[in-house]
C-alpha cells in the first residue's frame, strides 16, 4: 500500500537525501510532502492525511521536539508515527525524544535497507 509521507527538515539537501533513500528503499509512496520546520509540518498534517513523518530535531521557528509534543497533544495527529532523523548519537537525547512521543530514531547517514525495515516496522505493527 503506498504511503503519504511527510519529511521535515530545514535543509533542502537533507530532504532530498531522505526522498532519494526512500526511493532506493523501494518504499511505495503516494504523496511525499516536505516542510522546513515544525510549524510548516503541523499545517500540512492538519490539511492532508499523512501516514508517516520523518523529522529533524534542530530547526528554526519550531523544532522537532516541539513538533512531536504538539502532535502528541492533538488527538487527530498523535497516532501518526514520527521517525526522528538526526546525526546526534546521544542516548540521553534519544531517550528524551522517545518519551515525548517519537516512535523511532535513525542516525544520519542511513542506508536504504535501514529505512525500508523501519518503514515496514512503523506501518505494520499496530501501536496503541
Amino acid at each position, binding site marked *: 500500500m503506498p504511503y503519504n509521507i511527510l519529511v521535515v527538515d530545514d535543509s533542502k539537501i537533507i530532504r*532530498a537525501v531522505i526522498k532519494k533513500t526512500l526511493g532506493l528503499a523501494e518504499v511505495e509512496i503516494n504523496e511525499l510532502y516536505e516542510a522546513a520546520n515544525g510549524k510548516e509540518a503541523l499545517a500540512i498534517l492538519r490539511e492532508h492525511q499523512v501516514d508517516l513523518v520523518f523529522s529533524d530535531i534542530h530547526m528554526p521557528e519550531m523544532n522537532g521536539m516541539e513538533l512531536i509534543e504538539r502532535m502528541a497533544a492533538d488527538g487527530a495527529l498523535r497516532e501518526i508515527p514520527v521517525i526522528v532523523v538526526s*546525526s546526534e548519537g546521544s542516548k540521553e537525547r534519544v531517550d528524551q525524544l522517545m518519551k515525548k512521543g517519537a516512535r523511532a530514531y535513525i542516525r*544520519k547517514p542511513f542506508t536504504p535497507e535501514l529505512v525500508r525495515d523501519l518503514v515496514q516496522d512503523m506501518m505494520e505493527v499496530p501501536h496503541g
Partner: protein
Amino acid sequence: MAEDPRQIMADTLAAVLENMTFTFVDSPEEEVQTTDTEFLHATITFDGPSSGVLGLAAPRGLCAELAAGILGLDADEPEVAENISDILGELLNVTCGNFATAMFGETGVVNQSIPQITRLDETAWRGLMARPEAVKFIVDDAPLIAHVVMEERR
C-alpha cells in the same frame, strides 16, 4: 586518547559521503590537481568530554556536482547554486555528530555549532592542503580535504 581523531574522522566522513551523496571516496596516493579556482570551506565546533573543530573543504565544482546528484538536477541549474553551501555544511554536520559518538560514546551529550561556510582562493586552498592535520580524499575525481583539531582540556 586511545583513538586517533584523524582516523576516526576519515572513516566517518567516508561513510557519510557514500551514504548521503551516493558516491564512492578514495584516498589519493599523490596530490590531486583541480582546475577549479574557487573553493568552499566549512567548519564546525563541538563541545563535550573534549572540544575541537572539524573542517571540510572542496572545489566549488565538486560541491555543485554533489548537490546536483542529490537534488536530481544538472549542476548548472540555479537551484543547485542555491544549495552549494548547504551540501558542504550538512556533510560536515552529520560527520561531526558521528565523529563525536565514535570518539566519546553514546552516554554524554555533545553540543555542536552551526557549520560556518567561507570561500577560499587557490592560495588558501593550497595552505589548507599543506596543513599536517589535513586528510585528503578523492570524490568524483576531485580533491576534498577534511581536518580535525582537538583542544586540550585545562
